[in-house]
């Protein structure tokens, strides 16, 4: 183990992720990491810093720039029972490995009649708000949620990232792990992670309790929703904020339970609108909790556009605290 103990001092999300990978590498000598610049450089963001020194270049592999090749190699390793952590330098580039993921990885268990599991995690930095432009700002989870056979997670705190990373690595199925890069080094959310901390896949977290409306979200917008909820409280509106953490498996019980209480729901999702996960969530709410609705479900998402470079334009298409606040007010006043 290279990193210092997380239990003693607050850590940021990047450190928590590195720590989780490190601990899993140590726990299971069969585990392999593969990705572009993850060894010698320690990853473009430093998520694998020191791992190659610790575990050697046969377990921490610097791969050529070929996402299809990387995922394909990882599938081969996983088929042989070796857990693999695949890093996408930016989650935007995952599309280059798309065929291997959706046609091979996602369907392996099915195609082999349940004989072959793929214990692999494909993780990478995602999301906008950083001026990254069209190629470095995506939140493209909908593609993989739409491909049965994959699990998808997107934590918003260091301890959730730590706990989910461990759970994802130990899960026998392929997991796509979205890491919000704007949260990697965010000081305000640093926290101490207790020893042996775990977060199961498929469990949401209620980040703020409220009775007037439910705001369902995940990733970076969790913080905008919490801010909006504070402002709503001054208008005497108590919003409940649920951080899904896992998108698939989905904690439907938490979502529906909250809506049965508040009767009003707003979904906030950084991804673009059409066919996004917000739409799926709203469809499920309508299917299972229709008789509990006192207002039409609403959503705040990215506009159906690429993410612009320029900050004001970027913010104009992405969910913001103001947009969430306005939508929530419309929702409760319906």
């Amino acid at each position, binding site marked *: 183990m290279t990193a210092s103990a997380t239990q003693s001092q607050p850590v940021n999300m990047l450190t928590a992720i590195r720590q989780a990978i490190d601990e899993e590498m140590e726990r299971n000598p069969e585990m392999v990491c593969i990705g572009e610049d993850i060894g010698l450089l320690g990853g473009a963001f430093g998520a694998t810093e020191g791992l190659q020194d610790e575990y050697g270049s046969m377990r921490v592999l610097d791969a050529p720039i070929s996402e299809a090749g990387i995922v394909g190699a990882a599938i081969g390793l996983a088929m042989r029972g070796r857990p693999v952590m695949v890093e996408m330098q930016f989650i935007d580039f995952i599309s280059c490995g798309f065929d291997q993921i959706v046609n091979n990885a996602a369907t392996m268990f099915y195609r082999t009649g349940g004989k072959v599991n793929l214990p692999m995690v494909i993780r990478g930095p995602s999301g906008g708000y950083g001026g990254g432009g069209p190629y470095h700002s995506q939140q493209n989870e909908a593609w993989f949620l739409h491909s049965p056979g994959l699990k998808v997670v997107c934590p918003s705190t260091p301890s959730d990232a730590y706990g989910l990373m461990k759970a994802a690595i130990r899960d026998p199925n392929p997991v796509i792990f979205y890491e919000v890069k704007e949260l990697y080094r965010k000081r305000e959310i640093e926290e101490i992670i207790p020893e042996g901390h775990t977060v199961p896949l498929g469990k949401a977290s209620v980040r703020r309790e409220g009775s007037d409306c439910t705001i369902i979200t995940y990733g970076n917008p969790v913080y905008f929703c919490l801010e909006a909820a504070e402002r709503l409280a001054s208008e005497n509106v108590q919003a409940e904020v649920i951080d899904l953490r896992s998108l698939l498996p989905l904690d439907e019980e938490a979502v529906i339970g909250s809506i049965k209480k508040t009767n009003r729901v707003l979904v906030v999702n950084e991804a673009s609108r059409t066919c996004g996960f917000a739409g799926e969530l709203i469809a499920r709410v309508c299917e299972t909790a229709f008789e509990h*609705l*006192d207002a039409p479900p609403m959503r705040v998402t990215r506009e159906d556009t690429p993410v612009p470079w320029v900050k004001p334009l970027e913010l104009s298409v992405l969910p913001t605290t103001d947009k969430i606040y306005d939508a929530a007010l419309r929702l409760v*006043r319906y």
Partner: protein
Amino acid sequence: MATEILMPELGESVHEGTVTRWLKDIGDAVKEDEPVVEIMTDKVNTELQAPASGILVKILVPEGENVQVFQPLGLIGSESEAVDGGAPPVSQTPSAQPKTALETPAPAASPAPAMKAGNGRKFYTPVVRSIASRQGISEAELSNIQGSGEGGRVTKRDVEAFIASRGKVQHVESKPAAQPISAGPDQEVFVLTGMRKAIAEAMVKAHQIPSVSTICEVDCSRMVAFRTANKQSFQEMYGVKMTYTPFFVKAATEALLEVPQVNSAVMDDGRVIQNRGVHMGIAVALGDGSQGLIVPVLRDCHKKTVIEIAKALDELVLKARESRLVLDDLQGATFSITNPGTYGALFGTPMIPPHQGGILGTYAIKDTPVAMDGMIAIRPIMHLVLSYDHRIIDGMVAGRFLKSVRERLESFDFFR
């Protein structure tokens, strides 16, 4: 996607209207801005223009039925939508708002309507419906709940409050429900709608004003002589018929400026507005009177000569009779005049329009024997009646005002 023809907000206190006439039939082509439907509200009759070009594919509110503000009246769609009876309408967008002749400020936030379901059943949210069905709340009970949601929509909280209060209210409310009226063999039953309903409501409000009427007699000799001598040339010169009303308006305006207390009014919150200008409401009967009565406003009388008043009045009355009045023509009167003298009424006590301090009634001018300088003379005498709000005006002030009007009419010095 079809475009909704929405009932616009035609004025601050206008919440509903009645569809008087559809100018297009289903299947007719309409052009954007072309009038499609005629609406009557308590204040104005107006035509709504099409918000988009296309085919009138659906009429949601038929003629004779009431329509709430922001409720869709009909749908304009494409040719193909006409076949399947109308595609789902696009959600309310500013461009889909119908345009009207009225320049009314847009509401700050355009609230979604507390809509009616297409089958005529009122819309309630799923949770309200499910609570209602579990608790055995009837459709009628639901419709009586005052909604706190947007556009008066009933929310879960409202229905829960209703349930909480239902038990209690039932004990207290021992008033027998009004018996439904059924028509006898030689009777007919109808409900008040549109202007008639509005007049009824305004009169109830007017009745709540503690009012007193004071009467005086006016010797109209000079006025009558002037009119007889000049009505021909007046019409030729100014293009409008000379009636007595412009003189009444002029005299009342000058008297209001002289006794400004009469030109003030108690508002709903109990505060009093003192008007500096004079905007005169003129009661105008429509048709033979069976079509109701409307009180358009002759603006800025204090700035107008009697000729200007005559011209403006002529235009206003014409507009009223041709149903061309717009909302602006009906708001902001500071005082009113009614002239039952036109149909020979000798004397009456007019009711004060709400938000005004008084109303002046001018009655029939009738040759009457009067005592003058110890002799009996025959003079054209008119009763002048002032009804005034006794909360702010006392008899002495009313008397001063009446005296001022009387002297102006008697001396008839309007063309100095």
